[in-house]
C-alpha cells in the first residue's frame, strides 16, 4: 500500500446482491497520479469505479479518500471528487451551457461564466452550447458530460471509459488535457479500452479479473489490450 495515498483501497470486494463480480482490490493512489483500470467487458471495471466513489456499497473491504471512509453523502467528498461515469442523462429543458453553469455555480466557482465559456471552447461545443440536449449528437452529449468535470475544482477525477463516443481528435485532446492536469496535481482514476489514452494518461494500471486484480505498468497494460 502506498504511503499517504489520496485514495486507499483495502481488500475491496464489489458486486451486486452480495455476489462479487471480480477478485478483491487492494491499492493506493497517490495525489497527482493517474491510475488506469482495464479488463474485458463485464469484468467489473464500472462496478469497481462506482464503489470507489460510494455509489455502490462495498461487499467487503474499505475505501478511504483523503484519510476518511468514502461517503458520497458528505458534501466535502462531493466537493473534492468529480465523476463522469455511465450517465447520459440531461435536463431536457436546460441548454448545455446551463448544465455546466449549474455545476460551476453549485461548486461556488468564482467567475463561473468565464470558466464555462473556456471549457465549452476546450470541448469543441462553442457553437452548440446553447442547444438543448435533444438537439446534440451522442458524441456532443458525451463531451458535455466530460466538460462538467472540468468546470469545477476537484482533487480526484473518476472517469468510466472517457474515450467512449469521442472522435479520435477529441480523444487525443482529452488525454493530453488530463495528463496536463495530473502534472499539476490532479489525481485521476479511469477505466479504458483505448491503448493510446491509457499510455498517455496512466502511470499504473489495475487489471480487473475474476481470479486476481493486479497492478501493472501502462506498457504491460497496452500489451494486454492488444492481446485482447
Amino acid at each position, binding site marked *: 500500500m502506498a504511503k499517504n495515498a489520496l485514495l486507499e483501497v483495502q481488500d475491496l470486494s464489489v458486486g451486486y446482491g452480495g455476489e462479487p463480480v471480480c477478485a478483491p482490490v487492494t491499492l493506493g493512489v497517490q495525489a497527482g497520479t493517474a491510475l488506469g483500470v482495464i479488463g474485458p467487458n463485464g469484468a467489473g471495471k464500472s462496478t469497481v469505479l462506482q464503489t470507489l466513489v460510494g*455509489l455502490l*456499497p462495498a461487499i467487503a473491504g474499505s475505501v478511504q479518500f483523503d484519510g476518511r471512509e468514502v461517503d458520497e*453523502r458528505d458534501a466535502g467528498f*462531493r466537493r473534492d471528487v468529480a465523476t463522469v461515469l455511465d450517465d447520459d*442523462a440531461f435536463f431536457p429543458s436546460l441548454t448545455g451551457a446551463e448544465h455546466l453553469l449549474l455545476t460551476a455555480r453549485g*461548486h461556488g466557482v468564482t467567475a463561473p461564466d468565464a470558466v464555462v465559456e473556456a471549457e465549452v471552447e476546450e470541448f469543441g461545443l462553442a457553437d452548440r452550447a446553447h442547444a438543448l440536449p435533444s438537439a446534440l449528437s451522442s458524441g456532443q452529449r458525451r463531451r458535455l458530460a466530460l466538460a462538467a468535470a472540468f468546470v469545477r475544482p476537484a482533487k480526484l477525477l473518476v472517469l468510466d471509459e472517457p474515450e467512449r463516443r469521442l472522435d479520435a481528435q477529441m480523444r487525443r485532446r482529452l488525454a493530453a488535457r488530463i495528463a496536463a492536469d495530473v502534472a499539476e496535481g490532479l489525481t485521476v482514476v479511469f477505466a479504458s479500452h483505448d491503448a493510446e489514452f491509457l499510455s498517455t494518461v496512466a502511470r499504473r494500471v489495475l487489471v480487473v479479473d475474476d481470479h486476481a486484480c493486479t497492478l501493472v505498468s501502462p506498457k504491460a497494460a497496452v500489451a494486454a489490450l492488444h492481446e485482447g
Partner: protein
Amino acid sequence: MNADPAAELSGAGVRRFTRQATATRADTSWLTLGGDVLSALTTAGVVVAVFGGAFSALRERIAARPEAAATDLPGELTALVAALLVTAGVVALLSRLGPLSATPATAAWWLPLPADRRGLLRGELRRVCGVGLVAAVVVALPVVLAAPAAPTLPEVVVTVLAAALVSLAAVGVLVVLQARELTGWVAPAAGAVATVAVVVPAVVGTVGSWTWVPTAPDISLPLLGGVPVLLAVAALLAADRVSGRLRAGALRERGTAVFVASASALSLDTRELGRALGTPVHPPRRTRSWSWVREPWQAVVAGDLAVFSRSPWRWGQLAIGTALPVLAARTDGLGGVPALVAVAVVIGWSVAAVALGEPARRAHGAPAADRALPMGAKDVVRARAIVPVVGLAVVCAVSAGVVGLGWEWAALGAATAPAWAGAAVRGGYRPELDWSGPVLSSPMGAVPTGVGVTLVRGLDLGVLGTVPLVIGLLLGEVPDLLLGIALGWSLLLGLISVETAQKKG
C-alpha cells in the same frame, strides 16, 4: 480555478436555478397556469359529482333489494377491505419507487453537487406527498360515499381529511424507512395485509358469523383531527430531516424504476410496467435437479413451475383471486346482486390468471430457452397452458364452490378453468402495441388503433368463459345442461386462446 464554498448553491438554490432556467423558455404564462388549475379543479369536481351520484344510486339500489340468503358480512366491512386493498397497493408502489427518488438527470447533475441533499430532495418530498394526498382522496371518497348509511357532508369532509393526513404520515414513515434502507419488507407486508384483509372475512363470513361492523371511533373531534395532524407533521418533519442521509446510488436506482414505469405507462406497455414495478426475484435457495423431466413438454412444465414458484407474492395473488368473489357474495347487499358478484368473479380470477401467466410473460420476453427445445412453437405454448389449467382449476373450483355453497358450483367453476388458463397464456404472449401504424387522438394523447383489443387480449376470452357462471348466478342454480355447456364452451375458448396466443409474424 478558484471556488468559494460560501458561494456554493444550496439545495434550494440548485432547484431554483433549474426552475428559472426552464422557465425562461417555457411558454406558460400565469394566465395559462391559472386556466390549467381551474380546468383541473373543474374536472375533479365533475368526477366527484359523477362518482358520488353513481355510488349513492348504487347504495340505494342495494338497500332496496330484499336481503339475500347466506350473506353475512356488513357492507361497511367490504368497503373497508376495498380501501385496504387500494392502500396496500399504493404503499407497496411507493416503497418500490422510493418513495423519494432521483430522475436520471437529477442523479447526474444535482446529486454530485456539494449542495445539501435535504434541500435538493424537498421538492421531491412535496411531489410524493401530493401523490399520497391524491391516493387518499381516491380511496376515501368512494368508501365514504358507498357506506350503507348515507353520509352527511361533514362526515365526508372529516373522513377525506383524516385519510389525507394519514397518507402524509405514511409517506413520512416510508421516507424514514428508506433512509434506513428498511423498505424491503414493506411491499411483502402490504401484500400480506391485503391477502388477510380479503381472505379472513371471506372465510369467516362463509363458515361462521361475522359480528364486527367497522364504525368511526367514538372520540371527540379535536382528538379525531388532532392525532392525525400530529402524526403527519411529526412524520414529515422526520422525513425531511433524514432525506439528507439518502444515498445517491439508491436514489438513482429508484429514479430509473420511476422513469421506466412512467415511460411504460405512457406507451401503454403494461407488461414492461409490471417488470418495472415488480419486486426483484431473489436467487433461489437451491438448484433444482428436475430428475422427473423426460420429455420436452415436461421441461416446459418444470420451467414454468420454477418461474411461478419464484415469482414474488404468487400465493397472495391466488388467495385474493379465490377469496374476492366469496367476499362479494357474502356481503349484505352485494351478494344479492348477481352482476356485482360476477364483476368480483372476473376481477378475482383475472388476478389469479395474471399470477399463473407469469411464465408465459417471461417466455415471451426471453424466447431463447423455448427455441432450444426440440418442440414446435405451438406445442411449447400448449405445454405452457398445463400449469395455469391446474392452478386455475383449483382457484375457480374453490371460489365458485364457496360462492354458491355447493359441489355443483365447484364443478361449474372448475369447468371455467380452461378458458381462464387460456387467458393467462394468451395474455402472457400478448404482442407489443404497434405504434408504427395509424394513431387515434384520445384524452390520454395519441394511441395506436387497436389499443383496446391488444390490451384486453387474454382477459377477453376469460370473461367470455365466465358467461355460463354468470347465467348460473342469475338463475340461482346450476342445471346439468349448463355445466355441460360451460365445459364445452370453456374448452373451446381455452383451445382458441392457446392456438392463437402467438401471433404469426
